[in-house]
């Protein structure tokens, strides 16, 4: 924490951080009324960390997701993603940032209905300018990783909700993003499928060392998180680390902070 309060006025960040949010505010003006969706959020997310954002609906979780994901610019404050200050980016640069640095997982899966599972997974790579051969190979790798290699040529309508979310997860990892943002990834799934999706996310986080920020009000996810950030009224109300959480986690996993050998 102490090193973070040091000067980060340049674009150079402490190397171990994937995301820095400083005093982020997002106000919406509705007539005479001002809605303070974010009211001065400070947050740092380390590389390889799995952070859950918890809070009641209307607390600003989704706005935080939008701001960190480069989907909207904050009214005030700074947001750094992988050393890039997003408030300084134009629309095309933002598109590029979203393409290369950020993976998104949505509550409603958001697969492109006219495309097969494989085409959905390779779509971000098309935007990234990856050639066709590499796309297909990597796409199949990713689908195999989420256990859907045999469904590569199925359209989303031919897949179950859990399977669709798996494809969406594979898609989020397509361009090796610096951070994967998940907005209520289990919100549309039954309990068991939801658990499967969470374990898949943990696995990806531990094995690939990818940073994950997950919006949720699903307490199951607490197990998985390195830290839990509680949001209330557009502000961070408390941050808990895994050790502080007083619940029985069962078999405690070792905190995998390093990347696996093949990733290096």
């Amino acid at each position: 924490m102490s090193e973070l309060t040091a000067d980060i006025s340049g674009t150079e960040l402490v190397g171990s951080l994937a995301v820095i949010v400083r005093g982020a505010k997002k106000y919406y003006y509705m007539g005479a009324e001002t809605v303070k969706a974010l009211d001065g959020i400070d947050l740092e997310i380390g590389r390889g960390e799995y952070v859950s954002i918890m809070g009641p609906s209307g607390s600003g979780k989704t706005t935080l997701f939008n701001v960190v994901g480069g989907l909207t610019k904050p009214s005030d404050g700074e947001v750094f993603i992988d050393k890039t200050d997003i408030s300084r980016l134009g629309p095309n640069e933002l598109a590029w940032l979203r393409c290369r640095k950020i993976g998104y997982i949505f509550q409603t899966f958001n697969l492109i209905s006219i495309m097969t599972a494989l085409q959905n997974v390779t779509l971000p790579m098309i935007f990234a300018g990856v050639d066709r051969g590499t796309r297909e190979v990597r796409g199949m790798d990713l689908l195999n990783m989420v256990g859907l290699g045999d469904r590569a040529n199925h359209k989303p309508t031919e897949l179950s909700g859990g399977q669709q979310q798996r494809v969406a997860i594979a898609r989020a990892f397509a361009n090796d993003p610096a951070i994967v943002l998940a907005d209520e990834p289990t919100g549309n799934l039954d309990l068991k499928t939801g658990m499967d999706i969470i374990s898949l996310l943990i696995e990806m986080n531990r094995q690939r060392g990818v940073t994950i920020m997950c919006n949720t009000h699903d307490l199951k996810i607490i197990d998985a998180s390195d830290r839990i950030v509680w949001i209330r009224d557009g502000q961070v109300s408390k941050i808990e680390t895994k050790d502080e959480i007083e619940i029985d986690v069962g078999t405690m996993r070792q905190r995998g902070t390093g990347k696996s050998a093949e990733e290096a």
Partner: protein
Amino acid sequence: MSRGEQKSQFPISQAMLFALQGIRLRIGRMLLVLAGVAVAIAFTNVLLTTNDLFDAMGATGMEAAQGLTRVPVFRWLWMAVALLICTTGTLNAIVMSVTERVKEIGTLKCLGSRNIHIVEIFLFESVLLGLLGGILGAVIGYLAALLNFGATVGWKYLTGEIALAAAENILVCIGISAALALLASVIPVLMAARIEPAAAMRYEV
């Protein structure tokens, strides 16, 4: 590690694929629009071609034509109305296509597409409708004008030469149709470009 190009890519072929699939998913409605465009363009071409045929026939045929003179002015008004209606139809269809796909457009933007890529998709969709309707309508209109001319003025006046000269109206009409389709796509394309990537998170489908 960044690739040489710092902008996200979207090959034209992909945009066309999205446009084609967009049409395919709404095929019933799109066929109606297509028919509307074809009828309006056919009507336009009947007027244009008939006019040209009369002109090409020259003084010799004028007697035969007698009362059946050139196209009166008010028909040009009809033509304008027909074209206006078909343009509105196309506009409407593409606007619906955009509004039905707000979430998808938001998702594409989240995955890295630039506004221009989204614009391309709907531009193709509109122009494709305009071109197909235009070709269909222009050919039908041309043939109808020949038939009408032969039947009313007399087949002997309908020489290959003047028929061929009037055939250029087919191209003119396809051009008009494509231009109107472009015009019709301005509003929906602007709508699509303005959709925020955060629209991907809307709950309604």
